[in-house]
């Protein structure tokens, strides 16, 4: 199933029993069943205004095509899209719709927000076959309910995205990394101190015994802020591989289940210590990736009360829901929304439980 228009998409949905929505299939988590609905036919950049920092693209447009066009004007998607292919053992071409449906955001999230925060508008087709527009292409918009946020990260549970509008960002003229050898507790404490300084950092990560800070902007400003942070924390200017943090590269070739935890940053170090698992930290400790070789760690219990955990990569024999179970009253709202937008349960059945 490969629709080329919203009306074809609508027809396919109305005629289907169960659909497994797929962009490039590069960031699939969980176990969706049903016939594959391939969105790559809904491709193309419809509008790009560099002077207004606005880009509109159909959902099946390859991410690389968008990034290349933006780069030609020295612009980019601010939220730094992770490439999960190596980690998840996937091939294929990442699409912008898949990025949005998974709210995929990299290290710069601490400074500019997530994918959701860069979205200006969406068009999507719901389970009733209705073609729905929400938001638009302007920077500020509070006209009616914000279904754009509802769709971001909804993993296809409410509808199939057909078109997305973004706010984009100018590339900085300078970028510098500051690095220091640190254990987890001290490293994360330093990163939180950097985030709590006025020096506007765009990356705060810890991996393999090194804490890393990134500064971006005009050359003079970056140099000034780097100097201040070096004085404050004793970090040194050095090379740092932010793509490896973003893509969790260190766990890609390793055996084991991989958990993605979103937590209150001050809890991260103790949590890693308690679980005795290898970790990569981003967002100043707000994001923790854990490698669980045996697949037996009780991550969900460990995170209860200060965050949530997603099982990004599983190993045979593991019996764990992919997503953190919600409190009953919240789960009933989620179920209610799914029932309204997808009354026949066509979209990605089984994936979100």
């Amino acid at each position, binding site marked *: 199933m490969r629709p080329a228009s919203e009306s074809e998409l609508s027809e396919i949905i109305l005629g289907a029993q169960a659909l497994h929505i797929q962009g490039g299939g590069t960031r699939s988590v969980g176990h969706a069943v049903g016939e594959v609905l391939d969105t790559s036919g809904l491709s193309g950049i419809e509008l790009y*205004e560099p*002077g*207004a920092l*606005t880009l509109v693209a159909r959902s099946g447009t390859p991410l690389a095509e968008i990034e290349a066009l933006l780069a030609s*004007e020295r612009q980019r998607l601010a939220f730094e899209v992770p490439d999960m292919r190596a980690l998840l053992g996937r091939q294929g071409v990442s699409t912008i719709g898949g990025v949005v449906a998974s709210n995929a955001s990299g290290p710069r999230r601490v400074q500019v*927000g*997530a994918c959701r*925060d860069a979205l200006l508008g969406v068009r999507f087709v719901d389970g009733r076959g*209705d073609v*729905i*527009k*929400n938001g638009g*292409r*302007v*920077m*500020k*918009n*509070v*006209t*009616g*309910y*914000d*279904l754009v*946020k*509802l769709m*971001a*990260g909804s993993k296809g*549970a*409410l509808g199939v995205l057909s078109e997305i509008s973004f706010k984009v960002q*100018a*590339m900085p003229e300078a970028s510098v990394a500051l690095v220091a050898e640190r254990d987890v507790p001290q490293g994360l404490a330093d990163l*939180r101190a950097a*985030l*709590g300084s*006025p020096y*506007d950092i765009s990356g705060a990560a810890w991996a393999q015994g090194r804490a890393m800070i990134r500064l971006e902007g*005009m050359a003079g*400003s970056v140099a*000034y802020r780097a100097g201040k942070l070096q004085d404050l924390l004793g970090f040194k200017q050095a090379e740092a591989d932010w793509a490896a943090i973003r893509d969790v590269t260190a766990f890609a070739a390793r055996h084991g289940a991989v958990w993605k935890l*979103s937590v*209150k*940053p*001050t809890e991260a170090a103790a949590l890693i210590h308690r679980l005795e698992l290898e970790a990569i930290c981003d*967002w100043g400790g*707000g*994001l923790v990736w854990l490698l669980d070789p045996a697949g037996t760690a009780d991550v969900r219990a460990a995170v209860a009360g*200060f*965050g*949530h955990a997603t099982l990004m990569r599983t190993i045979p024999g593991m019996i764990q829901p992919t997503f953190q179970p*919600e*409190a009953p*009253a*919240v789960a009933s*709202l*989620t179920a*209610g*929304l799914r*029932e*309204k*937008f997808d009354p026949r349960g066509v979209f990605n059945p089984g994936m979100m439980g």
Partner: protein
Amino acid sequence: MDMPIPNAAIVARKSAIVTRLRSVLPADAVISDPAETRAYECDALTAYRCAPMVAVLPRTTAEVAAILKICHEEQVPVVPRGSGTSLAGGALPTADCVILGVARMNAVLETDYDNRFIRVQSGRTNLSVTGAIESDGWFYAPDPSSQLACAIAGNIAMNSGGAHCLKYGVTTNNLLGVTLVQMDGTVIEIGGPWLDAPGIDLLGVICGAEGQLGVVTEATLRILPKPEGARPVLVGFNSNEVAGTCVSDIIKAGILPVAIEFMDRPCIRATEAFAKAGYPDCEALLIIEVEGSPPEIAEQLARIKAIALRHNPVEFREAADEDQAKRIWLGRKSAFGAMGKINDYMCLDGTIPVSSLPYVLRRIGEMSAAYGLDVGNVFHAGDGNMHPLILYDANKPGDLALCEAFGADILKLCVEVGGCLTGEHGVGIEKRDLMSVQFNPVDLEAQLRVKDVFDPAWLLNPAKVFPLDITAARRAG
């Protein structure tokens, strides 16, 4: 502007409903005397007034839950109210409703600099959130012009912005979690001091839903370390078009000022007569503010100056010190007061693509002549958020209706060029009947379905946001 006919059966049960509310609330928290309920008859959209049946002023989430449970059982509409500063009529009562005011819920519950958040009760005013943390060098970024008075509850309901959201985003980008009381009294926690939703992003749709999905009683907000300093420059141009191009060029050059404000000639003249800020008499004026340490400010301003000078400004004024900086902002900050001095005014906030700025300003000028009503434009140019101020005379019969018709035409124009009806004030009752200009029936139905899930009986702020005819069946139950 029509409002639904009050339900006589509910009004007839007033004393029984008041008795039930008094049984769960302190005596001073239930206001039912018509002389006192009049205090809640309107918000900042003062052209429309209607006293509520009852007003309640709870102090805790538990009290809010008890109120909503009773109202749910009695099937009484509830209109949540923060500080009542809505310009869109978001807190306008109906005669059969309970106004639920959160103004007494103003405590700071938790301040955590290490994790960069503050948790407050939702009735706390926007500016006093920053007030609680600024001596430690922190601030809460969204800054609506009404920030001295407006409550976080209303900011969340309307997804409020402000002059500095070009850099820091609006409320939804700075909101981490809420305690929400549902219409049946169920209390739920959504989000918290961590990022992202585990499943569907309910927080994202609650923010900006104008109090129609639940009553927010507590909020976890992102706080930021204060920048080392800030400095504005003023640039005057002889054409709106050139000023618009200059804005676009600055943005395209990768410079991110915290604010780019735009004033047109009618607005410059009015504020100059009122505030005497010493603005040049020109067609268009930009105030551009940047932040950082002194060398960072100098670096950014040098770039901005180079770009601005390419467009032959009639004036480029830098602020040498704090006093001069204040004078640059003086006129802009007095703009609304200055226009109000001339006449009554209606303030709109339609948003347009920045590239359409010159065309839209020209069309507004033509419409102004056709309607015979003056209009001044002062707005957030960096993000295309217009604020046309239409002057009218409230004492002149028919002038308000004429002004509303002019306003509707401006908003239709915003939609026509690819923009939207409201960038930061919300729909309320003011733009309710224009929703079908921006959305088709299918788009609107999708939004109504969200409310069906959160508030199946349509009791929360029911007569707002959507045209009354499309919600009539739902509101009738």
